[in-house]
């Protein structure tokens, strides 16, 4: 006769081998099955919202890029969009195209990173290293075109801070040509490999109704049949003039989310190629750094993980009165309660990774 109870509470995190960033899950399990999840956040809360009100609008373009590394370009881009909305600025067409190029290069690298980690968590280390190697092509693009591997420094209020010349365009085109067959091969592997399918199909399911209730965004939403992509429903930059395909799957499992990310990496390449083909001559930014008058604005963009929204309120001071933003992961955490319900302990890390969590972004 045993005195061991059937129900346990186990901690996952805040520092855990399977988590890249600190987050603490208190998980009640019955046997091997999850019965309840409590999420405790705040381990990388840095008070950046407070800091933004102590810095000028221009300094905040630099600061917001440093909120998070994986979607670093989306933050200054959306912040700049809000400022431009208040000032009534239309950015030059070449700048709009170049913003798309920067955003989509980041999307390729970010999505491949997450899909690579999935292979790692499944225990398929060769595939993990292979996908990371393919991602390295995207990293080379960033390093060569923008000069940095993570923070591109591409955005300024009124346009972009970089330009493409013949040499960088040539490098970019060649790198994209190398990426396409590689990503297509990765798609084929994830579609057929037994190790991947066995650990990801019907695991961590989020139904469409649950997804709508949680307000999930990005690939997590689109893998659950919610066809919401900011680039399509609320176009910005040059997205309304580009061949954007919105990918939607309906099974809502870990596998579907990975497949959406891979498909979006390929679409990102199509978008960059279209930009390079249609890229007009002309200025890349306004001739003068604009003053931002008092006002308020809402700006939204589709970061690699989904909708990023910025609220900006300015007054007569050079510093904004209030800057508030909400990142995709802030919405998607909640969905973990549904995805982890009745999951096996061994699948917890795979399911958590499937929302592509970005803790630094979420906690600011």
């Amino acid at each position, binding site marked *: 006769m045993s005195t061991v109870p059937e129900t346990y509470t186990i901690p996952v995190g805040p520092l855990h081998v399977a988590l890249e960033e600190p987050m603490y899950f208190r998980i009640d399990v019955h046997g091997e099955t999850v019965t309840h999840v409590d999420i405790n956040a*705040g381990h990388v809360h840095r008070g950046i919202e407070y800091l933004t009100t102590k810095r000028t609008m221009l300094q905040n373009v630099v600061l917001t890029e440093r909120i998070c590394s994986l979607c670093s370009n989306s933050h200054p881009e959306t912040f700049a969009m809000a400022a431009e909305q208040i000032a009534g600025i239309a950015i030059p067409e070449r700048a709009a195209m170049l913003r798309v190029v920067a955003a989509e290069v980041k999307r390729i690298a970010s999505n491949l990173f997450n899909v690579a980690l999935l292979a790692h968590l499944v225990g398929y280390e060769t595939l993990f290293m292979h996908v990371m190697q393919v991602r390295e092509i995207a990293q080379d693009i960033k390093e060569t075109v923008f000069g940095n591997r993570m923070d591109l420094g591409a955005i300024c209020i009124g346009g972009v801070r970089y330009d493409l010349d013949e040499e960088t365009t040539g490098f970019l085109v060649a790198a994209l040509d190398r990426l396409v067959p590689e990503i297509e091969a990765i798609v084929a592997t994830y579609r057929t490999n037994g190790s991947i399918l066995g650990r990801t199909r019907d695991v961590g399911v989020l139904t469409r109704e649950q997804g709508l209730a*949680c307000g999930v965004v990005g690939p997590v939403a689109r893998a659950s049949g919610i066809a919401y992509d900011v680039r399509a429903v609320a176009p910005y930059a040059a997205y309304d003039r580009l061949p954007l395909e919105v990918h939607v799957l309906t099974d809502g499992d870990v596998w579907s989310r990975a497949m959406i990310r891979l498909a979006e990496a390929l679409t990102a390449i199509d978008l960059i190629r279209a930009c390079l083909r249609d890229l007009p001559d002309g200025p890349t930014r306004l001739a003068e750094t604009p003053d931002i008058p008092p006002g308020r604005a809402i700006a939204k963009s589709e970061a690699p993980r989904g909708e990023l929204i910025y609220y900006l309120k300015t007054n007569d001071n050079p510093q904004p009165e209030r800057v508030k933003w909400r990142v995709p992961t802030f919405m998607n955490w909640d969905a973990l309660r549904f995805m982890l319900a009745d999951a096996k302990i061994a699948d917890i890390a795979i399911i958590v990774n499937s929302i592509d969590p970005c803790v630094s972004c979420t906690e600011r």
Partner: protein
Amino acid sequence: MSRIPDDIETRLREAAPRGVDYASSTDPHGVTVAWAGLADREELLSVAQLLHGLGARLSMISASQPPAPEDEEEDDDGEAEEGAEAAAEEAPAPVSFGGTPLDGTSYELAYHFDLGGDTLTVVAYLPAGGSVASLTPLFRTADWNERELMECYAVTVRNHPDPRRLFLDASIDPAVLERLIPFSTLVNAASTKGLWEKIMTGHAGAA
């Protein structure tokens, strides 16, 4: 997920009979951003119900403490100048839409609703010590937003099902965004002049 309906202003006024300060603009891409200030914060719930019925998604809640207009006297100490006192008697005290005093102690809660890509922001004004009804029973997505604003400001959200701290530890003093926190305190005095000394030494060596 439909967009903002054309008759939204009428519907908002029906849901909030005490008054709505409505403004909207549509950008060249056809994306509408609308703002609806509420004269009475107690009508927030009925407005939220209206938007819930329209299939809106509560995208974000932004709390802030707008500063008093600059020409008015400072209200945080007894050193007010004589001239300022006289001016205060002449001009009526500044207020937000609906009459909430705008003296640097009141709050502005902006609820950003997404309607198929359009954004409708409903603004509730709260005086110091004010409270507002929780939207979490209606919108799951309000949960973390409301917990976060409660730890940043001295605002009470009534009927929140789980009003624990979100990011900040329970041991940290409340209303962090209402206080001036010196940078050295913020970074736990971990910022030293060591880096500069290193740079200056290197510079002297080079010269």
